[in-house]
């Protein structure tokens, strides 16, 4: 016979990033996030901030990057209200937005704690830390209070 095997944790079904120093060289990002700081990496010689954070500068290939705090607010450039097809662990409706944080850094992120009907281009949002399975954290945004 073949026994049922232990399926308590399947790594390839876990879409949340690994966040510990033994599994991720960018673990500092998640440590900062846990402390309430949304950060990314800057290349001091290129004077460029990148998203997502990097271990090596994509322009000069320096590996001496520094962590910088992103601004405490961002601007919504566009958004969509999703009402079908959420990944396991997420509940609908979900709001996603293009959030611009600096002239160099803007990305697509989830906006939470918002009435979808109140979303609009140009609104101001602020980062928020959300908990994730297996003692991890993730980032999202919410309308600026």
């Amino acid at each position: 016979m073949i026994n049922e095997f232990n399926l308590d944790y399947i790594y390839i079904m876990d879409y949340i990033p690994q966040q510990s120093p033994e599994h991720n060289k960018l673990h500092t990002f998640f440590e900062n996030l846990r402390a309430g700081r949304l950060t990314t990496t800057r290349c001091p010689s290129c004077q460029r901030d990148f998203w997502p954070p990097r271990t090596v500068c994509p322009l000069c290939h320096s590996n001496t990057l520094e962590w910088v705090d992103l601004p405490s607010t961002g601007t919504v450039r566009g958004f969509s209200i999703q009402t079908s097809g959420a990944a396991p662990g997420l509940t609908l409706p979900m709001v996603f937005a293009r959030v611009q944080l600096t002239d160099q850094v803007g990305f697509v992120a989830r906006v939470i704690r918002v009435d979808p009907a109140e979303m609009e281009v140009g609104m101001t949002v602020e980062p928020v830390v959300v908990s994730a399975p297996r003692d991890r954290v993730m980032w999202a945004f919410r309308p600026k209070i």
Partner: protein
Amino acid sequence: MPRRVALIAGGTTHKWGVYPGTLRDIVSEAAKACFDSNPRVNSRDIQGFIFCSVFPERSAYQSHTAPWAAESAGVAPDRIFCRVENMCGSGTVGIRTAYTAIAAGLADLVMVLGAEKMFIPNRQEIVLNMLTGVDREWEGSTGLTAPVQFALAAQAHMNKYGTTEEHLAMVSSKNHRNASRNPYAQFPKPCTVEEVLASKPVATPFKIFDCSSITDGGAAVILATEELAKDLTDNPVYILGTCQAASGFNHANIPDDWADWVILSQAAQTAYNMAGIKPQDVDVAEVHDCFSASEIIEYEALGFCPQGEGGNFVATGGSDYGGQVVVNPRGGLIGCGHPLGATGVAQAIEIFRQLRNEAGERQVANAKIGLNHNLSGIAEHHVVIYGRQEVL
């Protein structure tokens, strides 16, 4: 000089949608359909095999798939074989890979086979599989999947140019109607603009009929040198020009204005130059309508209409039968479904059939030049232009 390359055979699995079998079964049946389409080709003569499939490791628990699929297809390549994976554009990237091998003289006769098994017993895994196609750590981890990415582009186009949800629905209605004439289409039922607008919301501004779907399916083509093509068919369809371009991967790093797909414009212009034609010379086009708005933005980037006028182009019939260029006569991804790795190959098969006057009730009258556009995201595009013998 690179050698000229032609399509000489092509076939799809019979009915796309939920396929009652394994990925291996899809591969075998796509190969059979391809060989059945041209009895003059002996499967023993196939020298190259390019397999296009996005996540067989996840959906079929199988890696090392090029020789695995070759065996399942009944071919024994002895010059080149590999798997290509460029998400939704894999099929066209596979055709470009075969093209480069033949043009360079590495092989004379190459099969390109795209196959995807997306419906799996645990439906929750389908979404997890689709998350692998974006930047999983920094985007997929937030739950971002394809509908929202393209919805953001649609909103940008609507805000910039005044494109409406009705324009989007017109694309969907046209493609569903075309699919009703396509035996392998997953969604062969026509629908009106009003029905599209009233269908279930997915991600604003998209309703379910604006979206392509999860699909099982397979498709295969055979490419040959010009010399061999003339021996093996009376009607070769030649590759006139091709290009591929991408800029950035994470959406933080793609070109800033999502309403205008400048990377596609660049790729298309290079392909037009290589083919020695202009957009107005294209009679029939298969373009990547993963979502209705994509097709509207593509009209503009491919040069079928001026920037910002894509909505008006579909509204005035420019992309329909009798218009400037018939777009997505097979029904597109919206009507046929989107079995990732198979889509680009199936698009090429439609161009092949159209340019050989073999498309039956979908036939575009007197089609001589066809364009195939396949994408893998807002800023990753693949273009191939085909032509009949008489346009060489």
